[in-house]
């Protein structure tokens, strides 16, 4: 893999709780960017990369999403889940900020951090480039770009245009349609890597929380260590799901809809 561009994948989200599906995103994205699958549909530019790290960045409590449990727990669960991973780690910078932080701000922070590390340790004899940072997401994330007031145009421009997206398709959602329907995304389609998840697996954090409320088993949907943590702290009940019920999502209160 000499001569390839080093790449770090950043996943932002609630991780409420983290599940096997979240962790699969990283595995699928890494394989795709390494292009081990010769039948990959997104042939352009994949294979030029060497994935050197993955970051799980849980959103802060001020996001205001319904059912969001405190970040202390969401961080602890993510750490337990990723204990055995040798390349993906959990970062708490975003969740530690006083107010909700736009995705692009989180990306800038991590990019600056990665670039600083690179410049400090750069061995003049190695030919590697400064690592790139791309946002790792599911196909449902692509649809959020068209929700009024949720994203600033200049932020989308920077997230996609400057950094880039690695988007893993899930179930029947078609991310290429979301790209097609957006002029901005279409303009940057070279910077959006679409990864097909062939296995139909729609088990989500929402489903896990639902099963927990109903006393059903969640075993094998997420690591045992996370399940134990959830039971120890009695997370995810009828009450926890009611959190933020009347609250508006922070990004919607923060930004004005641009005419």
């Amino acid at each position, binding site marked *: 893999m000499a001569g390839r561009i080093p790449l770090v994948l950043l996943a932002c989200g609630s991780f409420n709780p983290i599940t096997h599906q979240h962790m699969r995103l990283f595995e699928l994205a890494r394989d795709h960017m390494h292009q081990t699958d010769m039948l990959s549909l997104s042939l352009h530019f994949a294979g030029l990369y060497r994935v050197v790290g993955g970051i799980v960045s849980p959103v802060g409590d001020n996001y205001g999403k319904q059912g969001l449990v405190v970040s202390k727990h969401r961080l602890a669960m993510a750490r337990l889940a990723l204990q055995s991973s040798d390349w993906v780690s959990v970062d708490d910078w975003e969740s530690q900020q006083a107010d909700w932080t736009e995705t692009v701000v989180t990306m800038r922070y991590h990019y600056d951090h990665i670039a600083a590390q690179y410049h400090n340790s750069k061995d003049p004899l190695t030919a590697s480039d400064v690592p790139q940072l791309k946002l790792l997401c599911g196909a449902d994330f692509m649809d959020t770009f068209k929700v009024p007031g949720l994203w600033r145009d200049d932020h989308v421009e920077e997230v996609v245009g400057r950094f880039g997206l690695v988007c893993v398709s899930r179930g029947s959602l078609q991310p290429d349609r979301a790209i097609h329907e957006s002029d901005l995304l279409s303009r940057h389609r070279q910077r959006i890597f679409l990864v097909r998840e062939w296995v139909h697996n729609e088990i989500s954090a929402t*489903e896990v929380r639902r099963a927990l409320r109903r006393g059903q088993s969640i*075993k*094998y*949907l997420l690591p045992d260590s996370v399940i134990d943590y959830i039971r120890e702290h009695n997370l995810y009940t009828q009450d926890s799901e009611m959190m933020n019920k009347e609250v508006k999502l922070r990004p919607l209160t923060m930004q004005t809809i641009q005419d």
Partner: protein
Amino acid sequence: MSSQEKTKVVLLACGSFNPITNMHLRMFELARDHLEDTGRYRVVKGIISPVGDSYKKKGLIEASHRLEMARLATLNSDWITVDDWESQQLEWVETAKVVRHHAELISSENNNDDVDTVKCGKRRKLEQNTIICQSSSYINTKEDPPRLNLLCGADVLESFGVPNLWKPEDIEEIVGRYGVACITRCGSDPEKFINQSDVLYKHRKNIHMVREWVTNEISATHVRRALRRGQSVRYLLPDPVARYIQEHSLYSVESEQKNDNAILAPFQRYTSAN
């Protein structure tokens, strides 16, 4: 309803388990939740019974590996176990025979537990008018053995209709004498299928349809395909199983060619018998 009045159930899953995945393990959890949710059952045990090598399915690797992977996968389960009886038989064993074998095992284990009541029963034969043994408290302490249910996906139930794959009397025995817990995909219509088969309809009370509301199609086929292509299977199956596969370099292009020209054991047995 007190727990004494609930019917105890043991779930038995037969299959290739080539390899075992999180989906297989979820089936047990979903079925247990479903049965216990009715309030009538208490699921006491789960058994994974990998098929023998003589089944001759394409891509089927050695039973010893498949057993070990299943064991690794169930280390952290307090109720699901792995059984090697089926895979140790020299010839392929019909599912009905496997079910019968385990039902008999469960029954005799149950009898061995109730030593006092067995003695009492014998005494009853000798002393015909014994009042002691006829008292209701003795009758209630001898519990019925757990009911054995075959745990399977809807595809197995639907395979009952494939010619020469199943003996009609075996189907009758499995659904009639024992029972089935069948995991159905959302989008499928399980009741319709039962309705279309006389034998299934007749024993519909013994068939528990477990609705899987959220799709989870992690299949062993997909896992093997990913492995052949050097892709990650992490989080599709338990970590110890993924490590075992890697350590032993299981599942390659070569392994998928195993049994390529062989005839599946049931077809060979039933068509030659015609």
